[in-house]
């Protein structure tokens, strides 16, 4: 019996020790500003788990930005240093990561994580600690309706507006030519659904009928039934609110059924470099919105593409570009406000400056409304002659849009 309670005592002591070490190992990087101290920027990214692929893309974009800006002498004469934590694509972790970065590690600035699901919880942490929160990936409408005052989305447009140019183009066609019926299929994900339903709203307003509307969970691997319903609807146009692999699967499943729409638009997937091979090169005529093109002639973009390619051996994609844009936006604010620390005055000045100014970035000039929504639009690309090319808007087009789309 004595033994028992010794043991219980031991357990309590061990618990105590663990808790104390947990609390005792904090080592803040210090918040005093001097020109020798680097500016530490805290980021949490999904480097493992469901969002790890785009998460790693965003990481590369941030790293490229840090390298380029340090080569130019840093920010306010101080080097920048990234502190990147892995949130395992998990909302609990992402919040705890930003708590750690802001509370324990006392970073000077924070950048946003990837994916809408993780942006909202983490933006709340930053908001409540009064930190500026510029993020590269929360495009869904929900992000901007939470009442966040410190949040800015560093890309040309929110998800709903990705297809704006396409909607205008379709509605401008003569009634007799334009597609009359549309089938939608969207992944159950705020971003992917946002793109498809943004277009749906606009087309329905223009009198174009919806004949199929399918939502599938992110873990769907078999698209046979969804494709069957779309093909059966005989819609003139198919719109996929897709990420990468589900887009590929959906297209292959549609091709297996020999469904031939007059127009086919999918988000994300068609812009990926692997896409053509993945669907057996049957890409002809597929449309996709994109917020970024390596060919854009904004001055900073040339530098970005060149140096990024040098660093990573391949050209940057949209995720990388949006991360880089985030860096550019924060940097512009820091240079203007001439401060970079957790001090509420400083963070307040950063936020205030972004509210009223336009920033030149690799995706073009960006400015935001009072909720942090960017005010530009996405370009529309199309696979023409085995190559993905910008077709809309006309000002930026590399080739004219092809309609009706050839068989795939």
């Amino acid at each position, binding site marked *: 019996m004595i033994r028992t309670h010794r043991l219980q005592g031991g357990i309590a002591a061990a618990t105590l020790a663990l808790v104390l070490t947990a609390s005792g190992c904090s080592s803040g990087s210090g918040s005093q500003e001097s020109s020798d101290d680097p500016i530490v920027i805290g980021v949490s990214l999904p480097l*493992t*788990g*469901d969002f*790890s*692929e785009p998460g790693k893309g965003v990481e590369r974009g941030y790293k490229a930005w840090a390298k380029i800006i340090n080569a130019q002498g840093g920010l306010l004469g101080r080097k920048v240093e990234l502190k990147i934590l892995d949130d395992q694509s998990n909302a609990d972790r992402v919040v705890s990561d930003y708590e750690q970065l802001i509370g324990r590690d006392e970073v000077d600035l924070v950048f946003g994580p990837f994916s809408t699901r993780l942006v909202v919880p983490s933006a709340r942490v930053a908001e409540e600690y009064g930190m500026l929160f510029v993020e590269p990936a929360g495009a869904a409408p929900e992000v901007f309706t939470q009442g966040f005052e410190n949040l800015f989305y560093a890309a040309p447009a929110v998800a709903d507006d990705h297809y704006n140019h396409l909607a205008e183009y379709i509605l401008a066609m003569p009634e007799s030519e334009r597609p009359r019926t549309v089938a939608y299929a969207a992944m*159950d994900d705020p971003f992917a659904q946002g793109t498809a339903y943004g277009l749906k709203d606009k087309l329905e307003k223009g009198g174009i009928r919806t004949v199929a509307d*399918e*939502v*599938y*969970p992110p*873990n*769907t*691997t*078999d698209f*046979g*039934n*969804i494709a*069957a*319903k779309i*093909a*059966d609807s005989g819609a003139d146009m198919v719109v996929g609110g897709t990420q*990468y*692999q*589900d887009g*590929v*699967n959906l297209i*292959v*499943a549609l*091709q*297996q*059924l*020999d469904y031939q729409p007059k127009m086919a638009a999918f988000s994300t997937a068609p812009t990926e470099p692997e896409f053509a*091979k*993945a*669907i*057996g090169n*049957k890409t002809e005529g597929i449309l996709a919105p994109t917020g970024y093109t390596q060919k854009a002639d904004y001055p900073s973009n040339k530098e970005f593409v060149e140096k990024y390619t040098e660093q990573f051996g391949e050209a940057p994609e949209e995720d990388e570009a949006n991360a880089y844009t985030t860096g550019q936006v924060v940097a512009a604010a820091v240079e203007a406000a001439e401060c970079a620390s957790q001090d509420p005055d400083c963070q307040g000045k950063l936020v205030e400056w972004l509210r009223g100014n336009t920033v030149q970035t690799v995706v073009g000039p960006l400015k935001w409304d009072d909720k942090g929504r960017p005010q530009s639009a996405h370009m529309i690309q199309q696979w023409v002659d085995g190559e993905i090319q910008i077709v809309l808007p006309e000002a930026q087009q590399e080739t004219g849009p092809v309609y009706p789309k050839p068989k795939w």
Partner: protein
Amino acid sequence: MPSASLVFQSVVLGVLLGGLYALLAAGLTLYFGVMRVVMIAHSAFLILAAYLAWYAHRETGIDPLLTLFVTVPLFFAAGVAMQRLLLTRLRPATLTMMSVLLTFSVALVIEGLLGYVFSGTQRRIRLGYSSSSIEFFGARVAVVKLIAFGMAALALLGLYVLMKHSRFGQALRATIQHREAAQLLGIDTDRIAGYGFGLGLATAAVGGTALSLDTTIYPSLHWHWIGPLMAIIVVGGLGSVPGAAIAAMTLGMLQSLLQLELSTTWAQTVFYVALFVTLAVRPQGFFGGRLAQRF
């Protein structure tokens, strides 16, 4: 109201899907039969086999079907080893519960290692015939789906012949029916249980290869499979291979048909609804034998 051709298309898809479910559920049933073990890692091995097929195809360009010559014996051996080295270590009194945890931990390890080696990226085999299809009474059937179904059907048929017409099969069935009685008949039930386990895992190898032909794979995909499979073996009656096959076809078909009217997500719940209804109304399963009564 969906058109007749769409309904027919769905029926065809349901049959094709049900075939794969049936094969995999047969494997789960074997483990349960010989060892009273609910093998959570079954679907993790399924995904592992799919990854091996994908990897072999990517590296060497060989047809994924050829990997069966390696994965089937390999998985059989792994099954025997797992039974001999891991499951026999557990105390008989708590075997059912603890084996769930043990196989669960195996599933976690496989998922983690797959993620470590191949990353979390979704993968898909690109075959020349990926998007080709054939016409079947007005329904379009993808060639890859047909191949997958054919593999499942062949494997199930093989299993059936093995169990019905071989001496080993007789011993296996005797062990499943009544272990003590089988021992009295001079059957080395431990050895048979090991082989039964290996056989179960071999179905995962076949199933995984079939799966890799037409769908995307990623490390955590196995959770997506284990739920429906467990529901199937309960509905079919734990321990009954024919019961599992019938339940698999029925539920696979139901899922496919329900998708006509419901969203994909809602349609998936059919497995769980069937599971709960079965346990509440007829816990021994709808097609099963007496085994299920006490488990």
